[in-house]
């Protein structure tokens, strides 16, 4: 099992492969109808500070909704990144994002900047040779098609969580990243938070003994709905928003990007809360248990033969219970034979015994005093998820949450969802990546795609 035990990705800024922006290249890439309005001016190098153009990463942003806001702000502030293009199926959103990028660069440079193209179709953005990397923050059902095409066209990828809509998509994405040598970071950014890393370090190093039970709170979405047809707003390409998923009449609640519901409620676009928060918390559990290239072996839905909590079980018997009350309102509670670890966002960490939380895993003196049984496993250190990705693009190193890790976590999300839908438990072989003894459930490992949106 790989443990990703390595020292932090350094600040190495080795020249990254791939073409850089040239005026000629930009013009060649900007000939699409959608990009005409974005005809660029020459960009003064002062916009990008000290970073030489050859070290600069030409960036495209795809899916300009709720989740992209923070990515956009992060990217336009980096002097080694130039956001060259944005893309969204909603004209209003893409034009707003283009304006945001251009205003940010104009403010930094003190001159008017008009160098960000706005695309309706991601294929046009990916066809540009001067775009080296893309951030994908669409709904889940578009993650894999865009990511796979981007990697095949030589782009590095940051893709929001969960990485995929189906288990098979994950296998394809991971294989594609390997085949094409691309740097793919999945946006399960809790891996880049100190408290979660420390929790994983404590568990992984055996400091609370063998972990037998884990509670995690994912919350609940309201049930999906059948919705009446509404007029499609002007400038919104609804058919493309649906993409490879089944057709339904337009309704604003279906496409709404909302942490509390919207498209996230619908099975067609994800695995509901299992995919939403599961992609964070199941991910940390996988990391802490050292299962990044494997996974659980059994999935039991809530309600099955009186099962009170949705449960998945690892081969060593460790059980993960969803929505079981977690002590002190934490997000995850690891219960081992010798102690406990409780962890949440906001750098919240509690341990039993309490001194575990004060251990500094990078301080050799502290490490010399650790209890017997300490395994000496170092976990990958990243303190900021997007920064880690960019550093890895420069250094051509694996980021903290690469495709295989994202695939294995998403597999758990999807299998929990499949068991919930089918209302029966599933046995899973994490080596062969097969559902055992249930051919009809196995059909859910992938979903047929609606034409013409068949890219994989």
């Amino acid at each position, binding site marked *: 099992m790989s443990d990703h035990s390595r020292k932090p990705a350094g600040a190495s800024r080795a020249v990254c492969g791939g073409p850089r922006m040239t005026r000629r290249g930009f013009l060649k890439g900007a000939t699409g109808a959608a990009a005409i309005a974005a005809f660029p001016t020459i960009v003064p190098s002062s916009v990008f500070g000290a970073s030489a153009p050859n070290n600069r990463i030409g960036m495209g942003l795809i899916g300009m909704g709720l989740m992209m806001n923070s990515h956009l702000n992060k990217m336009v502030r980096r002097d080694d990144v130039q956001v060259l293009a944005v893309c969204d199926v909603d004209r209003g959103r893409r034009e707003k994002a283009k304006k945001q990028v251009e205003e940010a660069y104009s403010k930094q440079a003190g001159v008017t900047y008009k160098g960000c193209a706005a695309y309706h179709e991601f294929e046009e953005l990916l066809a540009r040779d001067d775009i080296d990397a893309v951030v994908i923050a669409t709904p889940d059902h578009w993650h894999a098609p865009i990511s796979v095409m981007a990697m095949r066209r030589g782009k590095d990828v940051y893709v929001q969580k969960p990485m995929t809509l189906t288990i098979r998509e994950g296998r394809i994405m991971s294989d594609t990243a390997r085949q094409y040598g691309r740097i793919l970071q999945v946006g399960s950014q809790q891996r880049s938070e100190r408290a979660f890393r420390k929790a994983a370090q404590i568990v992984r190093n055996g400091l609370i003994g063998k972990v037998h039970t884990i509670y995690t709170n994912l919350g609940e979405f309201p049930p999906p709905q059948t919705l009446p047809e509404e007029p499609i707003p002007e400038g919104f390409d609804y058919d493309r928003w649906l993409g490879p998923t089944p057709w339904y009449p337009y309704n604003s609640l279906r496409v709404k990007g909302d942490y509390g519901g919207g498209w996230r409620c619908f099975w067609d676009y994800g695995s509901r809360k299992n995919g939403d928060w599961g992609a964070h918390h199941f991910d940390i559990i996988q990391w802490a248990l050292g299962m990044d290239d494997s996974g659980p072996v059994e999935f039991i839905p809530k309600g099955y033969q009186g099962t009170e909590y949705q449960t998945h079980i690892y081969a060593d018997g460790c059980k993960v219970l969803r929505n079981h009350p977690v002590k002190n309102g934490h997000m995850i509670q690891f219960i081992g034979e010798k102690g406990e670890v409780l962890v949440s966002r906001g750098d919240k960490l509690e341990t039993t015994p309490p001194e575990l939380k004060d251990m500094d895993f990078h301080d050799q003196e502290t490490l010399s005093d650790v209890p017997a049984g300490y395994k000496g496993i170092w976990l990958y250190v990243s303190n900021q998820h997007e920064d880690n990705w960019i550093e890895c693009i420069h250094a051509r190193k694996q980021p903290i949450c690469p495709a295989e890790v994202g695939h294995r976590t998403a597999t758990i999300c999807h299998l929990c969802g499949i068991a919930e839908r089918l209302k029966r438990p599933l046995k899973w072989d994490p080596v062969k990546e097969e559902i055992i003894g249930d051919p*009809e459930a196995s059909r859910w490992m992938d979903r047929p795609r609606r034409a013409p949106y068949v890219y994989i």
Partner: protein
Amino acid sequence: MKVLNPLQKVMDKVFGSPSVAERQAVEALIPKLADPEVKNRYAAQMELQDLASDASKPGNSRKRKTLGKVLAAKAADAKVPQPARVWIVRQLEYMGGDEAVPALAKLLGDKDAELAECARRALEKNPASSATAALRKALGKATDPVMKIGLINSLGERGDTKSVALFAKELGSPKTGPTAALALGKVANSAAVEALWPVLNKFPEAGEALINAAAALKAKGNAEAARAIYERLAKEAKSPAVRGAAETGLGKVPAGKPAAKAAGGKKKKKQ
């Protein structure tokens, strides 16, 4: 007494008559699946989904087939309202077997594009070999580019070697060519690989499909054929990404004699 439609009669003859209970359960749900108040349809959808899920449990093959037959008959019945037919076909996507193929095949030609598309997806997932034949037959007749893209993709997903010539015919089309290339990459036999070389560098999917084909051949144990593809791509592909992937692939297959046939190279004449 209720009169059965002709298709249902044929299916009853082939697969045996479904139980009255299954038919009654589905018939009771149909008006609710098409309730004019759209919000009210959800409960009926879940009820039908639960029926389908229960019938698809391991060990329930007889029940699955019985329900599959009832659902197929309703899917094919033009008197059943469209929203109900769509949801019924979507259940067949995940539990339909050979008993559902004739009805789904007929729906591929339905004038309702949504129903036809749902039927295509259901056939893509259907484990019966007759589903492949139905999709192939439909591709031979299809004229609408979107339907063609769907059918090509479905047949590619099913790895249908008999469709290679049909796919190859599409490679010259800007609309269907890229999907045809990807489908050929999934089939990954020598004829499929052979068809892809002339269009390598015409559109990106061709080189990408050859990378997929090489990986598939390697996974099947045919490392020599994979190596031959990688070697040729490393020399001939214009896309730096594809050349890079080919170089990476070459590093993972042992050196050996190129397998000209699987690589799509021309056979040498015997001396």
